């Protein structure tokens, strides 16, 4: 498997309990919001952090677990599709939403999408597992990834 390395890090909150050593803290801040507040409000601060990360990286995956150790079958499927498509591992920026409860709720609201995984390409929300799988099967995903230079086109001038 080429997903030996993980690029998962904490985006919104840095939970002190089980951050693996390879999870860099990204703009850590204390999580002082109550659970209810977190579920209902996406703070402008969280929104701008997510804006920034999805707009400054070509491929961002919000998932459960890490690419090398997914904790959910749907997240696993998206990682496998990206691998089959030939996206180099260093082009994948993955965030483990299980390690960041604030992000887990914030991303749902940010994308207006109730489930995880969520794939962003060039700042644009692509979809979850079902849609990524459909686009993989239809060839649409390969086309997008090639246009973005995330994979090398095998056949030129299709």
């Amino acid at each position, binding site marked *: 498997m080429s997903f030996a390395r993980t690029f998962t890090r904490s985006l919104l909150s840095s939970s002190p309990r089980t951050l693996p050593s390879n999870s860099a803290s990204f703009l850590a801040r204390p999580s002082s919001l109550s659970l209810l507040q977190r*579920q209902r409000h996406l703070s402008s601060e969280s929104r701008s952090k997510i804006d920034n990360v999805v707009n400054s990286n070509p491929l961002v995956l919000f998932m*459960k*677990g890490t690419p090398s150790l997914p*904790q*959910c*079958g*749907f997240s696993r499927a998206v990682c496998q599709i990206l691998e089959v498509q030939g996206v180099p591992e260093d082009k994948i920026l993955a965030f483990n939403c*299980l390690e960041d409860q604030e992000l887990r709720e914030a991303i749902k609201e940010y994308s*207006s*999408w*109730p*489930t995880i995984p969520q794939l962003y390409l060039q700042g644009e*929300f*692509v*979809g*979850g*597992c*079902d*849609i990524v799988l*459909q*686009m993989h099967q239809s060839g649409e995903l390969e086309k997008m990834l090639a246009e973005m230079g995330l994979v090398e086109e095998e056949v030129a001038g299709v």
Partner: protein
Amino acid sequence: MSAPGPLETTIHEKITAAFNPVHLSISNDSAAHRHHAPMRAQGGGNGETHFTVQLVSERFEGLRAIARHRLVNDTLKQEFADGLHALVIKAKSPKEWEATESKVEA
């Protein structure tokens, strides 16, 4: 197959009301997911956390997949808030459904 639980029944009713589907099937996949991390954290879930819905509706005609999924997700907004954890959505228009009807569909 056991009888549909209360959540499955609600999903069926809400989707029927919102989409007037020419075909609707719902399967409860929760048992297969009860061991994954978020479900373990909830004691294995309540048996109604993961579903697949396959529906065919005129409302999907001309819409991209993401718009179709958003329609379904919005219809079940309350259910997601109340603990519905995962929903596989297979949303087709009647034309697309006819084109694939001869094939074996999951």
